């Protein structure tokens, strides 16, 4: 079984405005300063960002980027290339273009690499705009080795696919370790892991509900969530992601707190779809016009889907990942097994746009 080093190759992420600024992050075993070269021509990376402070965990913010543009980058440490990759920036606000993104969840390994490795292999070399991981990225958030493993496996696609993380109940065991790797705010005092961004016709909102408990709906998160959704009403689609499902057909059943306190907010602000993990199976269903998906096929052993809920439309206990083809007025959700069989195809059209 492979042992992964502390060193982590570069990955791309963002938390607010990916049409003009993103982060490139990586980790080295020894403290050092690096230069990030980037540009639109892979043979001529004309721009650069130079680190001024030596460190092991690096987050370099690239700003003033052009919207809807493909960029290439390389990280150079002491004259040697440490890693390189590519990403695309979001279209400028108010402009729509089609894009494809992927979703996985619960990539935690259980007794061995399991199918997390197969999921990562399925994403290898793909040019998805980003991949969202809807929580439980690691199995034991206390354990540095779990992060080494996760990044080791994910490095096979992180060079071409930026990363949108969501915090899960296993990750939150040591929030500081999670937030070391995944930044969601320029303000380091912000404790909860929520953020949002727009991409073309879609507003994405990431929330911090790893367990779906009362204590997680803090005043600051609730106020921000409502305001953020209110600001996004002009876009055709609003997507919300948080780890704990509102209803699920395996172990956790119906979460009365989320049903009574969060679902009404999602419905009030016309959210198109909400995505979860937590239960280790794939499930799609609906609360009226609001579609939900549980994407727990990303790596952990599967939970039995023995108790379908009234809202459940399809349920499977198979390792899988979901790809979303996004047009200006439609979202098509294609869910594949890790061995490449398409087993769920569902489209949402936006009326009035």
């Amino acid at each position, binding site marked *: 079984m492979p042992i992964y080093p502390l060193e982590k190759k570069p990955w791309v992420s963002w938390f607010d405005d990916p049409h003009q600024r993103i982060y490139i992050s990586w980790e080295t075993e020894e403290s050092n300063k690096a230069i990030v070269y980037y540009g639109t021509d892979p043979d001529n990376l004309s721009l650069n960002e130079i680190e001024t402070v030596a460190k092991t965990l690096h987050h370099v913010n690239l700003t003033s980027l052009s919207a809807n543009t493909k960029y290439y980058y390389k990280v150079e440490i002491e004259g040697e290339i440490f890693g390189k990759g590519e990403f695309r920036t979001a279209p400028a606000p108010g402009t729509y273009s089609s894009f494809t993104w992927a979703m996985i969840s619960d990539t935690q390994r*259980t*007794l*061995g*690499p*399991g*199918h*997390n*490795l*197969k*999921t990562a292999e399925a994403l290898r070399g793909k040019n998805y705009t980003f991949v969202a991981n809807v929580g439980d990225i690691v199995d034991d958030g206390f354990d540095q080795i779990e992060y080494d493993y996760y990044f080791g496996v994910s490095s096979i696609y992180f060079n071409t696919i930026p990363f949108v993380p969501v915090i899960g109940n296993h990750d939150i065991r040591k929030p500081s370790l999670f937030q070391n790797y995944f930044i969601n705010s320029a303000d380091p005092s912000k404790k909860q892991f929520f953020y949002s961004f727009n991409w073309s016709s879609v507003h994405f909102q990431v929330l911090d509900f790893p367990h779906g408990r009362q204590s997680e709906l803090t005043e600051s998160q609730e106020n921000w969530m409502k305001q953020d959704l209110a600001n996004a009403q002009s876009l055709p689609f609003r997507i919300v992601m948080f780890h704990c499902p509102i209803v699920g*057909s*395996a*172990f956790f*059943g119906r979460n009365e707190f989320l049903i009574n306190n969060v679902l009404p907010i999602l419905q009030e602000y016309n959210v198109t779809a909400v995505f979860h993990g937590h239960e*280790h199976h794939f499930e799609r269903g609906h609360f009226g016009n609001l579609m939900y998906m549980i994407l727990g096929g990303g790596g952990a*052993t*599967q*939970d*039995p*889907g*023995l*108790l*379908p809920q009234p809202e459940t439309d*399809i*349920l*499977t*206990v*198979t*390792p*899988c990942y979901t790809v979303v083809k996004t047009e200006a007025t439609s979202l098509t959700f294609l869910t594949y*097994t*890790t*061995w490449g*069989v398409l*087993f769920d195809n569902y489209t949402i059209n936006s009326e009035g746009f």
Partner: protein
Amino acid sequence: MRFGPFAFEPTIALWFCTLSHCLFMSIYIFRPKKVDMKEHRGIWITYQLGRNFFFLFGFLYLHTAISWLSGVWIYEDIAYQLPAVILILIMGIYYIGGFMLLKPRMLEIIWIHVGMAYFLIMIHLVLPIVVNLRDWVEITLIGLILMELLYPIILFGSRTIFKKMERETIENSGEERKDLKKGYLLINFLNKQLWKKSIDLNNLAMRLFNWIMWSLLCLESLLKLFGTSIIIW
């Protein structure tokens, strides 16, 4: 009271099953031949422990397989989960059948019912309402193993008491002792062998079955470690 839909994942049950069948095969291959178990208490205790262990874990495999077979399936689930479900179903039936066909005693039958009741209560009543599920799954399994360990102590203790009472009865045969007679009858009842049916584990069909199942279990377990199965490559 809430009745939970909990069942172990076939992959977890498969890994347990592979480990238990490796243990079974090592006992099967290296077991001493023609040993008078009455003379060797260690071997006798190991034999009793093993019988009970394989029964209760056989029950776990059977429960998992039946729960999953009665759940929701689509074609892709069949490809990924079915090999493990079929293997644990066969092994569950084999372990339970083997136990029942190897001259069980009344105490064993009572004990396995206690074990099954414990397992069902934990899995359907306790696990669905706990918050920290993983810890409670571990507690359930540790409890099951402790019950296995407790069983030979009870069986051995009851046999010792039985023999002591038997001796006392002989020594006091001239006296009328109602308490001793009642206790004697109870211990005698618990130690009663229910039937004498037995399977011959040495015949060719059984040997082939054990080796084939062991190979399939090991193969499927290894494939599952890397996210595939016998059907999917």
